[in-house]
């Protein structure tokens, strides 16, 4: 092997945060490359501090390194200062584990958690020394694979990638390894690249864009069909049925330098059936699969011991919904070690007093801020988006938080949601002001920060038909919130740049033609587009214009029932009919209950894939309305009552939950 370390080393004292590039983490593997082993370079297209904590990447890193026929290393996007020095000296993209050049790997696999990182993928492929366009890559070049949430509509990346993996990677990476191992041992001969791709296309969950033809009628996509008879018409996501069988990571990575989530993370469940209609994560990760509470405890104890962290984050899309949450939390808290008791952090808190009680139990030290996400300012709009938390839920949560010693609240909202009126937008400040007045009863320092983000409709959600608000409309709505807040004492407003929201919209529901736009943005220097200091909407608009593509067509246009989406041939398991029905229910302001504790409404995921929810408790946990709009303060003793499946005429069901 040829390590690039001796060439990198003299550069590192000259760049910011050089510890990003040294590897050496606790838990890092000692990869042994060799003949007959498939070498994966697991890449995260953002800077080390953001990418290192990524659990998906850590899990696959460990599973691959356990295989006798595979080896995995990691790579992160070099920051612009090092990239410049590398390009000046012809140093290619490298792994942080052994500082190997990317061309010593068979697979370059990217984990994509957001769309704006697409240009960084191109940049890293180019920095590695490979052609960015897949059809120009030769047998000696690695396969470029993408996975993660932002790979569920991979069409904008179709020209640049060899494959996209839909869904969870634990099992499918082994199947990919098998195919690539044979390709490798056959010598990767001239012309063999398309043959190996053809074989990969037959693995469930693996999508090979070059094996499909897209047919257009003007702007419109009218068909996406396999080019060969043995390539599937529909690629469906992969899902592991039982999280308890995948106790990973066993050797969590503890970095030597500070990263964004600098604590142990233990995933308590996957999937979420709260059914928030804007939430792509909730739709594409179904069904709910809880990890056994006992295994969670083991992972916490062993992980803390192994890493030396004293803080553990229990991760999921809504951690208070975990059946074993109270028992797990209580079992950690009263167990002080030599260096102080470990603390627990609960991200993604549900909005209710019970949850805050839980947070109060685990919080140690100064209680500075607590974050809730009501997402919309009025009950009406919350029924549209199916985030069925009542004002009572929020105020109960806030009351509980202020009375437990917190003094600052942060409330997350989306604006530009379907059917949103100015009453809804201004309702954001009404809610915040209500929270401030509750806080003032407890402390003079009470403050509430409202964080407003522009809504971007995502593939595989009921809102995929919705025309996103343009930049002027989002600016106007943010202006409404700011103006209302200026009259409300104690309410601060932060907002996400509507320009970045628009660019995200272009990438999120784009088809293959958007690929040329991404390439133009990248060639114009547009890397690190999630970083405001590097983002410039003009690059995107110029690229769209140069390609003759309409922003309105891709972003702000409402789609109708006959729309053939660019991801028409890709499935997250959700029935198209379910998504359409749920979209109609949204417009009719009809809510839909959480199917974990109520009969199945057949969204398609469980029935299609022979899966089922794995939830330890047959009834909802205690607290608030549990996102049903009903009073369920007593939890288990009051199971959720079954409401009829919402339909277009089903207004009264939801209104029964008000007050």
């Amino acid at each position, binding site marked *: 092997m040829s390590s690039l*370390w*001796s060439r990198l*080393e*003299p550069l*590192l*004292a*000259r760049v910011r*945060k*050089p*510890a990003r*590039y*040294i*590897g*050496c983490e*606790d838990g890092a593997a000692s990869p042994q490359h060799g003949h007959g082993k498939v070498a994966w370079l697991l890449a995260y297209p953002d800077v080390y501090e953001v990418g290192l904590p990524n659990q998906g990447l850590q899990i696959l890193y460990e599973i691959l390194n356990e295989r006798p026929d595979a080896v995995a290393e990691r790579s992160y996007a070099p920051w612009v200062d090092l990239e410049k020095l590398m390009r000046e000296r012809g140093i290619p993209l490298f792994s942080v584990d052994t500082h190997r050049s990317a061309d010593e790997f068979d697979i370059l696999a990217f984990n994509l958690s957001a769309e704006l990182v697409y240009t960084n993928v191109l940049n890293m492929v180019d920095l590695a020394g490979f052609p960015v366009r897949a059809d120009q890559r030769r047998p000696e070049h690695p396969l470029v694979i993408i996975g993660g949430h932002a790979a569920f509509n991979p069409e904008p990346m179709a020209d640049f990638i060899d494959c996209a993996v839909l869904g969870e990677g634990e099992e499918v990476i082994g199947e990919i390894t098998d195919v690539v191992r044979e390709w490798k041992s056959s010598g990767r001969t001239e012309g063999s690249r398309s043959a190996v791709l053809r074989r990969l296309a037959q693995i469930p969950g693996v999508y090979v864009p070059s094996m499909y033809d897209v047919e257009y009628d003007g702007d419109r996509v009218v068909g996406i069909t396999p080019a060969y008879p043995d390539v599937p018409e529909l690629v469906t996501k992969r899902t592991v049925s039982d999280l308890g069988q995948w106790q990973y990571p066993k050797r969590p990575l*503890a970095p*030597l*330098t*500070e990263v964004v989530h*600098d604590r142990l993370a233990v995933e308590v469940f996957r999937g979420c059936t709260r059914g928030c209609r804007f939430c792509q994560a909730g739709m594409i990760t179904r069904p709910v699969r809880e990890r056994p509470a006992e295994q969670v405890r083991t992972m916490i104890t062993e992980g*803390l*011991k*192994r*890493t*030396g*962290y*004293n803080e553990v984050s229990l991760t999921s899309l809504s951690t208070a919904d975990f059946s074993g949450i109270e028992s797990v939390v209580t079992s950690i808290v009263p167990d002080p*070690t*030599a*260096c*102080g008791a470990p603390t627990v952090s609960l991200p993604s808190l549900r909005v209710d007093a019970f949850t805050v009680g839980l947070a109060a139990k685990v919080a*140690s*030290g*100064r209680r500075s801020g607590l974050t809730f996400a009501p997402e919309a300012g009025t009950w009406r709009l919350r029924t549209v988006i199916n985030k069925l938390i009542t004002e009572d839920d929020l105020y109960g949560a806030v009351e509980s938080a202020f009375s437990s010693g917190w003094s600052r609240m942060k409330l997350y909202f989306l604006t530009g949601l379907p059917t949103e009126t100015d009453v809804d937008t201004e309702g954001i400040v009404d809610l915040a002001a209500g929270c401030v007045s509750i806080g003032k009863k407890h402390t003079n320092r009470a403050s509430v920060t409202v964080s407003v983000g522009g809504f971007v409709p995502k593939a595989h959600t009921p809102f995929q038909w919705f025309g996103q608000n343009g930049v002027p409309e989002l600016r106007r709505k943010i202006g409404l919130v700011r103006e209302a807040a200026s009259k409300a004492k104690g309410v601060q407003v932060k907002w996400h740049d509507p320009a970045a929201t628009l660019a995200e919209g272009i990438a999120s529901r784009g088809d293959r033609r958007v690929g040329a736009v991404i390439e133009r943005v990248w060639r114009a220097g547009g890397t690190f587009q999630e970083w405001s200091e590097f983002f410039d909407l003009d690059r995107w608009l110029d690229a769209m214009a140069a390609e003759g593509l309409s922003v309105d067509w891709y972003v702000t246009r409402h789609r109708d029932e006959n729309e053939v989406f660019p991801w028409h041939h890709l499935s997250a398991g959700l029935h198209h009919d379910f998504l359409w029905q749920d979209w109609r229910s949204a417009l009719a302001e009809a809510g839909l209950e959480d199917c974990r504790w109520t009969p199945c409404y057949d969204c398609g995921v469980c029935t299609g894939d022979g899966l089922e929810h794995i939830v330890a408790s047959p009834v909802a946990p205690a607290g608030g309305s549990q996102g049903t709009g009903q009073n369920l303060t007593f939890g288990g003793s009051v199971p959720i009552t079954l409401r009829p499946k919402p339909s277009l005429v089903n207004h009264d069901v939801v209104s029964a939950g008000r007050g």
Partner: protein
Amino acid sequence: MKVRVSYSKLGKIRFTGHRDVARIWERTLRKAEVPVAMSTGFTPRLKMAFGLALPTGAESLVELLDVTLADDVDDLESLVRRLDESLPVGMAVTGIRECGPSEVSLQEDVVATTWVMAIDAADVSGNIDRLNAACEVWVDRERKGESRRDDIRSGILGLRTISTETSELLPPLWLGESSGVLIEATLTTAGRGIRPTELVEALVPGCEPWNHLTRVLRINQMIERDGEHVDVLSARPAHTEVGA
């Protein structure tokens, strides 16, 4: 009970910063299950006090750390073993001793440090002679965000070229990988102390120091006792000494 630990920081890990090292030690002490005392207050922290910060990119044979233990530990040797097992590659404990509760903090006590630097530039020894002969050495430097021009001559307490043969202290790793002329410099840390990069700027005027400073290693930290500079770890009556 308070212990003073010295440790080395060599190789790739030299690119971690001072704050990173503090976090590495917190995790190491927990991994090694050392009974460290906690501070009181809203956010209890491990009671640790670090010596002078080592610049990111510099290596050291003598980094210092005071740790207050919640319980007395008799067997300091086994403590050292546990710490070494838990420290990341590139860091190792080199000494430990008990120190009195009233001892002056490391930050205040250390008056000078000795560095070995590998400098890749023309006529380094001629420039060393020039500096040694000069009465004033002015450099532009930054402190607390403000740029200022200082005479650093009186803070250069020793400056000479050395050869790899004469310096037995140098770690093997260092010898093969560093390029340039080796120099040894003893620089003051009192007041506005002198950083190795500032010395390089004095030796190679107008340069970007890290373009010439290929490697830098702290080999000694000294405190003043009875007008003499003495090695910091051996400066006090040692209750316990463990060579590691």
